[in-house]
């Protein structure tokens, strides 16, 4: 079943003659659809950029180069640099375990991997405060050793790990399941060891889904707000990521500055969408050329709740 922002490779059917809806119906429906989308999508998106550049390009740049702002950018990038590789390794390990072997409890494992999607980001932040906050489970222990998790980088990393946990796994697993593991078995008979099979046979097969999962994981890591705002304490210049910096600036009525950062993140989002379109086209083309079965639509069997 469909999940949002997963790659669609089923491709459109050729146009259907003889079953055209009447012109009046088409006009109404297109107007309604486009009107809805313009109002709810386009206008907010365009507004972000307009508000950022309201006072000119100069102020836009100045807002970004404010020391606290630069720190926010750096922190955001750092968190992403830690979180994305970790969750990618996890996603690949889980995919290998699930698709190459037979064992009981496989479906349960797949459902559990989707769990973070079902949890509100605020709750996600809360769980780590409960564990590592001053009054939390490990609170006293951490305090004694002068190691801060909450209101510090480790907390932000943990919360972001939690929230972006399933992204790579759920792009890669369905694809590997549909491709089967005949090629891996063949490589085994030809004498390859585990790593060789993984690098030379498996990774090339799934590379587009893998890239896309990584891009999504990255976009989400950089944009996460709810979970991070709970654990970070929003200490300017220290624990503010870009989304938190946006909130700070906005609450202080520094509108242009807030929207400047927002524009950067919005650009990142648009880039994510562009990459998705490119990847979809690549996968389509590969599928159309081959006599081999097209990779199944890169959708997850479990619902996306985030």
């Amino acid at each position, binding site marked *: 079943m*469909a999940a*949002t*922002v997963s790659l669609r490779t089923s491709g459109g059917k050729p146009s259907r003659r003889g079953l055209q809806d009447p012109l009046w119906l088409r006009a109404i429906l297109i107007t309604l659809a486009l009107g809805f989308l313009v109002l709810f999508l386009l206008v907010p998106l365009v507004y972000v950029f307009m508000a950022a550049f309201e006072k000119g390009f100069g102020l836009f740049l100045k807002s970004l180069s404010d020391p606290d702002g630069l720190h926010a950018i750096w922190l955001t990038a750092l968190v992403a640099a830690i979180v994305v590789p970790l969750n990618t390794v996890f996603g690949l390990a889980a995919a290998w375990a699930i698709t190459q072997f037979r064992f009981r409890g496989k479906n349960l494992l797949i459902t559990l991997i989707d769990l973070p999607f079902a949890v509100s980001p605020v709750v996600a932040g809360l769980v780590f405060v409960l564990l590592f906050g001053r*009054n939390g489970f490990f609170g006293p222990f951490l305090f004694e050793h002068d190691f801060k998790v909450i209101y510090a980088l480790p907390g932000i990393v943990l919360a972001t790990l939690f929230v972006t946990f399933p992204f790579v796994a759920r792009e890669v697993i369905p694809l590997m399941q549909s491709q089967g593991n005949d090629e891996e078995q063949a490589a085994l008979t030809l004498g390859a060891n585990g790593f060789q099979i993984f690098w030379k046979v498996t990774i090339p097969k799934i590379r587009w889904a893998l890239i896309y999962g990584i891009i999504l994981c990255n976009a989400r890591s950089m944009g996460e707000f709810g979970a991070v705002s709970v654990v970070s304490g929003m200490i300017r210049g220290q624990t503010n990521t870009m989304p938190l910096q946006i909130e700070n600036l906005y609450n202080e009525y520094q509108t242009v500055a807030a929207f400047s950062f927002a524009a950067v993140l919005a650009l990142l989002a648009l880039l994510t969408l562009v990459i998705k379109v490119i990847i979809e086209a690549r996968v389509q083309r590969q599928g159309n050329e081959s006599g081999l079965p097209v990779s199944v639509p890169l959708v997850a069997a479990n619902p996306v709740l985030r």
Partner: protein
Amino acid sequence: MLKHRQLLPGFGLTLGFTVAYLSLLVLIPLAGIFVKTATTGFDHFIASAFDPRAIASYKLTFGISLAAALVNGFFGLIVAWVLVRYRFPFKKVVDSLVDLPFALPTAVAGISLATLYAPKGWIGSMFAPTGWIGSALVADGWIGRFFPPDGLAENGIKIAFTPLGIFVALTFIGLPFVVRTVQPVLEDLESDAEEAAASLGAGRWKTITRVVLPELTPAVITGVALAFARAVGEYGSVVFIAGNMPMISEITPLLIITKLEQYDYSGATSLAVVMLCVSFALLLTINAMQAWASRRSHGV
């Protein structure tokens, strides 16, 4: 459990790592919520989770989420229809944009919507008493004059900082879900059934409503459920545009944060338990619905 050795290498390593990572990062922390609630006692849990302020937040959160999801159901179906079946300029661009709410950070959406719908914002000002919509609705406006003595909206319609603003934000956030759930189903629909109906003399409207739409119902319902589930937990896009006034426009996630800021850990946790239970129930329901939907389409 394993009678045979596994054929390909790496079973122990990958499964072990997977389970360990999953447990440490997800399962144990989540369990922590339930453990905490258990240790503070059932009565305390009930008191916190169901006090008037909490209940007001539930009504608000669930109510508006549902409304937004239903609106997305209606418009999402239309958008999916138009994207799959019609041709118009820039269709590909429009199609890609549908994913924007999913890709855009919630804080960005939050401040953009809040500013737009504030009384002085581009859209909010249209609904203010001086705007072109608002002025029509006040007591002496061309619509409002039929509704003495105060018109349809005494001071125009205020969107930001009211539940209406929350509705707007949650509609934005749920937009892709119905569209992306219905689109593949529409794309894969064979035209045979419609052609048969047409050859039997059914007009286009009848064909659509009686042959095609029923096929789409499971997908629409699933999409609405997904949008609802997403909206219920949403924080970032809502917190700027909501008034955040207790009992009136305070969503549950915000209430959790407020309690945390007051160091009321157990209160916050109680609310989190309620949200988790709802989320898990939704997760199971949606799974079941998807199983039903695929049985329906494959069982034929």
